[in-house]
């Protein structure tokens, strides 16, 4: 029996291996083929992509970034330089249009790191082109977009991981298992705290010239048109409701996701929501500066999501035995024994284990099994964020039917489940 042909050996024998490394998509040659290396394209090369570049470039030879895309040429060039420098060749190519990247036959997986208003369109197109996808949180901007993305992923048999990487962190899995196992006794409520929203930029703002290299029309894509301003573009888009819902869909997506996990509602959701947000009456930013909403689950506990000016984001489970408070970087409890119990093995409920969100995604691509943060649960978590946003905008209690994904008896709320896209973009 001969030794398996390694990627490196394959390249050595290939007459095609000349200047740029040959990346054969793993699906073409099959899982036993010499190329089991997964070829990745990254769409959106800003702040949120940084952590992906760092992690993927630090991986062993099983994954390679072969394409980067951004509507800002400066960012594409920076990403290209970073990737090619790390690999020591010129094998990565840059794009300004995600559709080019999605149509490259040598790309296996597409990482979607764009502003939120682009997630659904890039993801659906990638699924239609046969790509597996890793979608940063929130899964989509609206509820309607989320359901469309789930359907596209299922229809085309793709693997889709939602970028809620807390699902791949032991402390959050421990907490979800502990709560589900009754470790806190009867669960009374879950409190999600999120950092404050917006920077203050004044009641007015000035349109500015579009910087060289930035395709502003493409940056806006399906979002309503507005003139460019530096504060209204990279990163800060998350504080403009045309693109995102502030910290509700930023940190809230992480902590509400863990609440959903602990309540075993990954295929369902709340049945009611109420909220009162404070929205800036003027200025560039339009998302709530003070977030305060509560979702209610059938037969379950209330889950709150509130702005906290000190202490950052966290999820706190409150039960009859006390509370545990879990953040990405720290844990606390009303009694240290609760944390020790929570972290101990052998709890009554065991959840699927993933200790690395990227590893889990790539393993799922190879096995064709659903990943730890499958697109459906990503959609359900993003829906909770949307419910909170809609309740705060309308300022009233709303009934939600998680099976039909519609509000009960509130037409205005139902209209807010989706929104028209700027031409020519659409979900069709």
């Amino acid at each position: 029996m001969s030794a398996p042909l390694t990627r490196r050996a394959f390249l050595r024998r290939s007459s095609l291996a000349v200047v740029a490394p040959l990346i054969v998509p793993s699906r073409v040659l099959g899982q036993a083929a010499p190329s089991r290396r997964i070829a990745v394209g990254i769409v959106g090369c800003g702040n949120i992509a940084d952590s992906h570049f760092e992690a993927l470039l630090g991986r062993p030879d099983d994954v390679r970034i072969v394409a980067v895309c951004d509507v800002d040429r400066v960012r594409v060039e920076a990403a290209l330089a970073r990737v090619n420098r790390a690999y020591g060749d010129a094998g990565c190519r840059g794009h300004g249009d995600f559709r080019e990247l999605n149509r490259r036959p040598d790309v296996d997986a597409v990482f979607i790191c764009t502003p939120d208003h682009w997630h659904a369109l890039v993801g659906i197109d990638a699924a239609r082109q046969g790509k597996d996808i890793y979608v940063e949180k929130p899964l989509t901007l609206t509820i309607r977009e989320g359901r469309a993305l789930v359907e596209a992923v299922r229809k085309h048999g793709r693997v889709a991981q939602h970028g809620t990487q807390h699902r791949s962190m032991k402390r959050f899995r421990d907490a979800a298992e502990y709560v589900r196992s009754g470790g806190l006794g009867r669960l009374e409520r879950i409190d999600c705290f999120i950092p404050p929203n917006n920077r203050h930029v004044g009641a007015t703002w000035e349109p500015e010239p579009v910087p060289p290299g930035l395709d502003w029309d493409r940056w806006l894509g399906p979002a309503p048109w507005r003139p460019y301003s530096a504060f209204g573009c990279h990163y800060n888009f998350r504080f403009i409701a045309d693109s995102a819902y502030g910290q509700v869909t930023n940190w809230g997506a992480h902590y509400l996701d863990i609440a959903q996990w602990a309540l075993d509602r990954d295929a369902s959701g709340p049945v009611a929501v109420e909220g009162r947000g404070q929205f800036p009456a003027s200025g560039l930013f339009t998302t709530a500066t003070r977030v305060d909403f509560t979702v209610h689950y059938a037969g379950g506990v209330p889950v709150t999501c509130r702005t906290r000016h000190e202490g950052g984001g966290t999820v706190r489970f409150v039960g009859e035995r006390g509370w545990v408070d879990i953040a990405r970087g720290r844990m606390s409890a009303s009694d240290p024994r609760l944390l020790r119990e929570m972290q101990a093995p052998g709890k009554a409920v065991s959840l699927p284990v993933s200790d690395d969100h990227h590893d889990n995604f790539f393993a799922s691509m190879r096995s064709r099994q659903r990943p730890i943060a499958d697109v459906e649960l990503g959609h359900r978590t993003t829906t909770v964020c949307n419910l909170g946003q809609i309740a705060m905008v309308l300022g009233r209690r709303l009934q939600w039917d998680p099976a039909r994904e519609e509000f009960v008896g509130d037409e205005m709320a139902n209209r807010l489940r989706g929104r028209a896209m700027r031409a020519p973009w659409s979900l069709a």
Partner: protein
Amino acid sequence: MTADPAPVPPPADLPKNSFGATPDPWIAAARLDYGADRTLASAVRDQVVHVATAPERDRVEEKLLAALASPDARPAGRAFLCEMLALAGSARSVPALAALLRDPATSDAGRYALEAIPGPEATAALRDALAVLAGPARAGVVGSLAARGEEVRS
């Protein structure tokens, strides 16, 4: 009993009224520019999202349509009013929105509202626009019809 002191006259240089008239927020919303203070538009939004009865909604819709018809409506103001009609508009708004839809310069704003307004009137307006629009604007209408669950032949 002590007599009241005689009133002190105001200084001669004090304006009689140092405040301007309160602007009509509906008209101000129509005149909104990108980057301008949108406090009055936010007041309109508050009224729209808090309508509780059918007559209130009718009144709000009437106000929005009147503002939309304002001859000095600005692109940002028009987009804002259409966003509000996406929430509170009914078949009564369809003619005004259909007119916006057919003009490529205002098509996105009109379609933003029309896509959200239930009923055959809005669907018919979108279908009718297919015959007069081309390019991106037409593609947008196709997408809106699909979002409403309508079949469209390209």
